[in-house]
C-alpha cells in the first residue's frame, strides 16, 4: 500500500495554506512597509545616524520593563504588539479551516491523525519564518531607498551604549533566534487549543499572553522573550536567553505530545456542530 508521507501532506499545506492566507499576507506586507517607512523617516527627522538594526529595534524592540508608579501609564508598544498579534491571526485559523470547512479531506487522506498534526506544525514553523523574512525585506526596501544603509551589528552596541564585550552571536540570538523560537512555542500552544477547543479561544490566549507579558516582566511569561529591549543584553536584570530556550522547547514538546494524544480521541463533526 502506498503510505502517505508527512512531506506530501506538508507540501499540500504549503500550497493550500498560502492560498488561504494570501490576502492576509498582502495586508502584512502593507503593515510592514508602513512601520518601516514611519520609523526610518522619524530617525531621519531626528538627524541621528542609525542603520538597519536600530530601525529593527524601534519596530520590534518592544519596551523596557514597565514599572508601575503613581505617575506612570501603561502603554503597549504598538508596532511590536501588532506584529505579533497579526502573526497569530495569520496562522491561527488555517488548521481549523482545513479540518472542518474543506470537508476534512486532507485529514482522511493523511491516513493518520499524528501525520496531520505534524504537517500543520511544520506549516506553522514555515509561516513564522516566512513572516519574519517578509518583514526583513520590507524594512530593507525602506532602508535601501530612504534610510541609512548600515547593516553592521556593531551599530546596536554603539547606539545603545552596550558593553563592547557583547558578541554578534548574542545579538543574533536575542534579535532573531529566541523571538522566532518563542513565536513558534506560542503558536503551538494556540494551535493545540484551536483544534481541541476553539480557534477564537486559541487566538485570544496568544493576545492575552502578549499583553500580560508586556505588563509583567517574569521569566515564565514567555512573551517577554519576544521583547528585545528586555533581554539580558539591554538590561542587567533582563531575561536570560537560555531559560527562554528551555521554556520554549518545553512548551513545544509538551503541547505537541498533548495535542496528539487529545486529537487522537477527538470527534470531527461539522463546523456548525463544533462552534
Amino acid at each position: 500500500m502506498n503510505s502517505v508521507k508527512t512531506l506530501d501532506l506538508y507540501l499540500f499545506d504549503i500550497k493550500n495554506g498560502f492560498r488561504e492566507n494570501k490576502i492576509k499576507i498582502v495586508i502584512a506586507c502593507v503593515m510592514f512597509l508602513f512601520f518601516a517607512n514611519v520609523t526610518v523617516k522619524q530617525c531621519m527627522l531626528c538627524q541621528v545616524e542609525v542603520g538597519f538594526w536600530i530601525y529593527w529595534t524601534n519596530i520590534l524592540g518592544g519596551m523596557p520593563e514597565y514599572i508601575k508608579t503613581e505617575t506612570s501609564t501603561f502603554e503597549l508598544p504598538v508596532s511590536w504588539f501588532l506584529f505579533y498579534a497579526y502573526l497569530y491571526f495569520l496562522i491561527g485559523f488555517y488548521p481549523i479551516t482545513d479540518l472542518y470547512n474543506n470537508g476534512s479531506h486532507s485529514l482522511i487522506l493523511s491516513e493518520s491523525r499524528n501525520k496531520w498534526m505534524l504537517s500543520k506544525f511544520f506549516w506553522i514553523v514555515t509561516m513564522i519564518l516566512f513572516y519574519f523574512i517578509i518583514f526583513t525585506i520590507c524594512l530593507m526596501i525602506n532602508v535601501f531607498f530612504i534610510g541609512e544603509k548600515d547593516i553592521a551589528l556593531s551599530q546596536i552596541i554603539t547606539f545603545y551604549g552596550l558593553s563592547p564585550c557583547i558578541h554578534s552571536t548574542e545579538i543574533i540570538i536575542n534579535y532573531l533566534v529566541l523571538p522566532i523560537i518563542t513565536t513558534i512555542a506560542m503558536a503551538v500552544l494556540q494551535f493545540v487549543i484551536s483544534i481541541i477547543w476553539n480557534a477564537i479561544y486559541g487566538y485570544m490566549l496568544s493576545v492575552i499572553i502578549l499583553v500580560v507579558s508586556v505588563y509583567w516582566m517574569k521569566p515564565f511569561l514567555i512573551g517577554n522573550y519576544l521583547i528585545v529591549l528586555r533581554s539580558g543584553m539591554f538590561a542587567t536584570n533582563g531575561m536570560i536567553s537560555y531559560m527562554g530556550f528551555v521554556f520554549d522547547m518545553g512548551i513545544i514538546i509538551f503541547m505537541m505530545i498533548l495535542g496528539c494524544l487529545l486529537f487522537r480521541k477527538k470527534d470531527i463533526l461539522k463546523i456548525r456542530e463544533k462552534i
Partner: protein
Amino acid sequence: MEIVIQHLTKTINKVTVLEDVNMKLCSGHIYGFQGENGSGKTMLLRAISGLLCATSGKIVIDGQVLGKDISFPPNLGIMLENPAFIDSYTGYDNLKLLASIRRKNPDIKQVLEQVGLAANDKRKYRKYSLGMKQRLGIACAIMENPDLLILDEPFNALDQTGQDKLAEILLKKKEEGCLILLTAHDKDVLERLSDELFLVSKGRFERKAKECLENASSNQ
C-alpha cells in the same frame, strides 16, 4: 476488506447516537442504511471513517482496530453530507490538489467525466450548482479507486441522469470488489442497489430481511 463492528456505542452530550451496533461488512457488497433524519446513519458512517471515536465497543478493519492500530481505514473514499471544497478553485484544481497528498496520480479528467462534469470547465466551485457540487463530491470519493467507499446521501440534488450515472458507478465499483456503504432518502434506490439493507432508528441498526430486497429488485 472486512469490517467488523462489535458493540459500538457512541454518546454525545449524554445523547446516545449509536447503541450497541454489531455488524460484519465485506468487500464486493453494497450496504444500505435507511432511516429518518437524526436516526444515526451519518454517525455510523463517521465512526467507520475514523472521524468519530467510539464511547465503547470497537471497529476492526482487516484485523486492525480503528482509532488504536489505525486512525482511518486504508484507501478510503468518502463523501459525508454536503461536499465541501475550496471555493476559489475549479473542480479539476480541487481534485488535483487533494490527489497530491497520496501521489497516486488518478486520471482526474476521466473521473470528472464519469460523474457528468466537464473536465475543462473553468468555473470556480462557488459558481457550481448543488447538483454539480454533489457530483464533484462523488468524483473526489471515487478518484483514487478506494477499497472502502462511504457515501452519505449521494443522490441528493442529482437529476435523473446523475442518479443513473451514480447507480452505474456504484455497481461497477462493487464488481471491482469495493465495499460500499450508502445512505439515501429514496427507499427504492436504496433497496435496488443494496445487497444488505439496515433499518436505522434512534441509533439502533436492524438488518432488513433479504427477501424484501430481492422482491424490490425484481419489481424494478
